[in-house]
């Protein structure tokens, strides 16, 4: 960009000082009669540039934007809560399956020797029966947790 201050820095600096002096005089509302013609011309520009813009924002702009932002916040919170609920249900499910696995593989060894009767021991020693019982327990547990979370969300909402 080849501008006047590159071709003639001294002229640029003189003119810049005039522009700035005009701005300062206009801001301070000094008497214009003491200004020279060039400063007065720049003061006219400065005065025009200090006028408020003709177009404005609606008077309720801030209120409306705040309401929109708040509504978005509520939506985001709801989405986050739903995600949290699903995550918790999934974690409980996985935890339950791990327990089922452990019981299936080791349950018979733990429970048979300590069982009071041989029949109970035999029942507990049956891996398929244990797996079925554990699955039922996990299913009931996750349903109860889900119902509890839904109740919480409803009471909060």
């Amino acid at each position: 960009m080849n501008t006047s201050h590159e071709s003639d820095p001294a002229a640029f600096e003189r003119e810049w000082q005039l522009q700035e002096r005009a701005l300062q005089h206009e801001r301070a509302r000094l008497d214009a009669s003491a200004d020279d013609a060039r400063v007065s011309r720049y003061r006219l520009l400065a005065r025009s540039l200090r006028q408020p813009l003709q177009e404005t924002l609606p008077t309720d702009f801030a209120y409306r934007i705040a309401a929109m932002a708040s509504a978005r916040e509520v939506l985001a919170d709801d989405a986050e809560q739903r995600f949290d609920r699903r995550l918790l249900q999934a974690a409980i499910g996985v935890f339950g399956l791990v327990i089922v696995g452990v019981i299936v593989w080791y349950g018979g060894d733990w429970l048979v020797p300590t069982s009071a009767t041989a029949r109970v021991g035999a029942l507990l020693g049956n891996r398929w029966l244990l797996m079925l019982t554990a699955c039922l327990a996990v299913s009931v547990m996750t349903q109860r947790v889900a119902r509890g979370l839904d109740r919480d969300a409803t009471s909060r909402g």
Partner: protein
Amino acid sequence: MNPTSMNPDRELVDAVLARRPGAFERLVREYQGLCWHIILRLVRQPEDARELCQETFLRVHQSLHQYRYESALKSWIGRVAYSIALRHLERQRLPLAEAASAEDDGLGLLDSVDDGFDLEAAWSDAQTRRDLHAAIEALSALQRSVLTLYHLDELSIAEIGEITGLAANTIKSHLFRARLRLRERLEPMLGAVA
């Protein structure tokens, strides 16, 4: 920290992040004038400017937790407004600044001024004011914006630099050339007034 010595920016930001009632509305009211000036001066269309202003404050609300107090909140919000308006200009393929031409130099004008100029008489002439307004509108988007931030919002060159990302010398050059160009356009009008 002593709450009475708290930075007002921090106080406002903390209140918004804590979701205190009315805090975000206060923030919008505080900075809507600045954003309006930046955006309207860049995009010129009031309807577009209103939408972009709305987008600016929703973006501010969404990302306020990322504000790190490295610059004044005013500059940070101004930068969001500036970048949103800039993206709008790019999408519309509208130029931000005109290429500098030999006429921008204005050196011929520097010493060619008659004495005896009456500021108040010139200002009281409605046609001169309208012509000046039209001359400001005819400047490039960047020059309009920089002039408004400097003259109307009374921001310093450093603050304008934080908002626009331009170097201080570049801003100074835009201010200089824009004011010189306006003065150039003013001369024939003043002949009519005198």
